[in-house]
């Protein structure tokens, strides 16, 4: 079997390409999910998604690779408190409050004691006390994790994630409030063009704050590196430069920066006897894949079983109708943008842990590569955005094996897309809408 060939290529190479494609497809799927969620919530195709990924990756790097200043930590804790507090209270604001009436069963009125006033508040908001208690508990736990993560020096990944999530939520909320909400009711094209503008603004902001240099998130690093040039083995250590100054002459100058050990070996599946070589799994893509699956499951459950998720689906289906039954459409939009900003950050962080780092040439443009995946699912299906991502990943990698020209490799996912759209103009699983006159 080790010498089998499939259309002129070794069986091992083809299987390896499919595995690479599936893993890469996981990352594509995660990006596609973010674009689909925004489209479902607001009907807007978000061209700024790549730049949101880039910003999220850089914020993670800022907290991961640097000691955050006390003031910055303080601000982040305040913001996290504000956001989580708002989210918990927001559960009660999904609906507009019912009119105040005297409660004949409890006898409570607006002038009663605190307990009764809380009961009245919850009743007006149609809040289930048990669910509210659970939400508050989850929120408090999350807050504790964020605060501990931001303060604890040793858990830099948690610190980075906490910083990135809070920062990204803030970016998502700002985008929605300042640029998208004022366009509600305006032609969709205006909002879509607005997302293009947001992309440029984020590009400018990231360059002003972080400069033009690519940033490596060295999570998946080797424990020690053996140098091919000198043969010595070593671990992460201080970056030393030789410098010359006119007053002190030549000297070695230790810096605060460090030299990392390089990329950790890929995970391996022992297939040498069967395929001639072991199969390899890129570490950062494996993590990306499982995070994408986890996010997909979480979102499916969220949209299907939570009040907020159901309210968001209703809003996405018909904003006018949702508003007429008392749902707060604007709040739904804000929540959607905040969630998608976090998803974008996760994708940016995953790519940042790969070979390219958080590179301006790579991360923002990555979102454009998943457009075929998004469109395959008809822009609306979370499940098929996921499948689309995996399909595009595999098609892309197989074309690398079988087609010599890069143009063909880049074109292949779009050829698949064109074929699908010709057969089913609404995408494989897009909803065909019937307009009745």
């Amino acid at each position, binding site marked *: 079997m080790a010498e089998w060939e499939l259309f002129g290529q070794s069986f091992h190479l083809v299987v390896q390409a499919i595995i690479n494609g599936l893993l890469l497809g996981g*990352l594509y799927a995660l990006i596609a999910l973010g674009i689909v969620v925004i489209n479902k919530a607001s009907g807007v195709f978000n061209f700024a998604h790549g730049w949101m990924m880039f910003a999220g990756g850089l914020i993670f790097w800022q907290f991961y690779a*640097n000691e955050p200043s006390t003031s910055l930590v303080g601000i982040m804790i305040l*913001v996290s408190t504000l956001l989580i507090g708002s989210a918990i209270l927001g559960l009660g604001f999904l609906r507009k409050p019912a009119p105040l009436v005297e409660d004949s069963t409890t006898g409570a009125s607006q002038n009663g004691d605190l307990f009764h006033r809380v009961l009245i508040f919850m009743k007006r908001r149609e809040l289930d006390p048990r669910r509210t208690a659970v939400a508050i508990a989850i929120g408090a736990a999350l807050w504790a994790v964020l605060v501990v993560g931001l303060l604890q020096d040793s858990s830099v990944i948690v610190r980075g994630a906490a910083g990135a999530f809070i920062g990204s939520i803030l970016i998502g909320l700002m985008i929605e409030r300042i640029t998208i909400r004022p366009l509600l009711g305006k032609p969709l094209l205006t909002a879509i063009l607005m997302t293009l503008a947001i992309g440029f603004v984020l590009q400018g902001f990231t360059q002003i704050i972080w400069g033009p240099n690519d940033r490596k998130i060295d999570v998946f690093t080797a424990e020690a*590196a053996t140098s091919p040039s000198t043969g010595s083995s070593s671990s992460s250590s201080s970056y*030393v430069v*030789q410098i010359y100054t006119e007053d002190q002459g030549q000297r070695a100058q230790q810096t605060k920066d460090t030299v990392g050990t390089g990329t950790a070996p890929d995970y391996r599946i022992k297939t040498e006897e069967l395929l001639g070589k072991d199969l390899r799994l890129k570490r950062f*893509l494996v993590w990306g894949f499982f995070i994408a699956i986890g996010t997909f499951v979480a979102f499916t459950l969220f949209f299907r079983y939570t009040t907020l998720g159901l309210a968001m689906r209703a809003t996405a289906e018909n904003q006018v109708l949702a508003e007429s039954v008392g749902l707060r459409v604007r709040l739904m939009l804000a929540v959607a943008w905040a969630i998608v900003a976090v998803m974008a950050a996760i994708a940016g962080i995953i*790519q940042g842990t790969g070979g390219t780092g958080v590179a301006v040439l790579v991360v923002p443009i*990555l979102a454009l590569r998943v457009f075929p995946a998004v469109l395959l699912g008809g822009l609306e299906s979370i499940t098929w955005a996921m499948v689309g991502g995996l399909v595009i990943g595999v098609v892309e990698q197989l074309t690398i094996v079988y087609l010599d020209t890069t143009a063909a490799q880049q074109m292949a996912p779009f050829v698949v897309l064109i074929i699908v759209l010709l057969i089913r103009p609404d995408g494989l699983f897009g909803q065909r809408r019937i307009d009745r006159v």
Partner: protein
Amino acid sequence: MKKTAIVLLVTFALLLTFAGPATFASHSEPAAPTHVSQERTECNEDLSGQTVTFYAFGDLSGPFAFITQPLVAGLEDAAAYFNEQEGGVCGAAIEIELGDTGGSQDRAQEFWDEFSNLDPQPEVMFMFGSADAELLRDQIAEDQIPVLLAAGSELALYGETGDEPAWTFAIIPLYTDQLGNFCDYIAENWDSFDIEGDPVIGHLSWEGAFGRSSDTEETRAYCAERGIGYAGAEYFLPTTSDVSTQLDVLIDEGANIIYTTSLASGPANVAAAIAGAELQDEVLMAGTNWALDTSVIGLAQRDADGITGTMPYLWWDELDNRGIQVISNQWAVNHFIPAGDDEEAQRNALAIRNIAYLLSFPVIDAYIELMTQAINEVGYDNLDGQAIYSILNGGFDYNAMDGVLRFRYDENTRAITNGRIGQIQFLEVEGGVQPTVAPLNDFLDLPDLRVGGEDTVE
């Protein structure tokens, strides 16, 4: 909800206020270095009190800003240094005028139109990108303004047939010549790399004119004649997330040298794929001069260890050279020392300490020499692009910054023609690790492998 928007805006502004300053290092006045240009032609005129402007344009804020921002810093530091220490151009102070295309070729066209229509017209300009130079090739000749180019595009320099020397002069060797030089070295020293099998090159490069410029019929034939096999070429877009499959294809075809014509995240991506596959002992990673840079070291860390290729200049650590001493001093004083213990500022200073900053000093030095020779030839009042072109085309040979980079052009030569082999190494030194690009041999004349070049093999 307006209140909410205001709260969000204020919070974000506060975040920017606290996070932002970490990225900006303060500057101070440079110390006083001493004279460096040993080969400078004596100027026959005194232009004290006047200014000359060095015009440059390219992608300063777009996708290649990581390499052009250090170039800008270097050009400004170099101009300041030469103005203060060597009296600029015949006493006239050098001013730097920059145009930012943001990576747009339309903007490149606009900047050319704007600068070339100035009165007086610039005598010479500096550009950064192969694609811009190819786009403007004919117009540059038409407007008769020579261009110094920080790229090695054969099309921009010699045209499609290889025998139409342009008004553009590259400050690095052609990528074909670099690969030829690499093959010369491998043919003689392959055993020293301790890699199994005869050498076989596989190209893993960026898609586009730059990435495809090394792998030509001429380089394949030249390397084959030296016993170096060819496994094929795989190209990837700079946006590619991971290149493991491309690497697997080349390894399957028998490659044990992976040669990349890309820069920054490109070589880093290739190096990470090699390290992930644990092939460091079975494969030699190599590339053009841009792969041997701190921008690659910063991203790839120790994955970059051992990357080998042609290096046509001295490196930062060759501090015995007076030119390198001056460049190191300018970097240290203007960018590094004021940073103190600020981690982020030091990291940014290290990012500036790259190939582009290094090259900007010999570029300004060569510009001064060119202007001086032209002024001596035709007088400052008659100085124009044609006068500069005559100097370059007539045989210009100048060891800029005491030999940091040797400019050598004539009527048939439009790129640097000498170089040596360098390798990224991580030296264990007291206090940590010193990443460096170590020379593996001495400077040699590179083979001429342009289409129809002297050293091409039938």
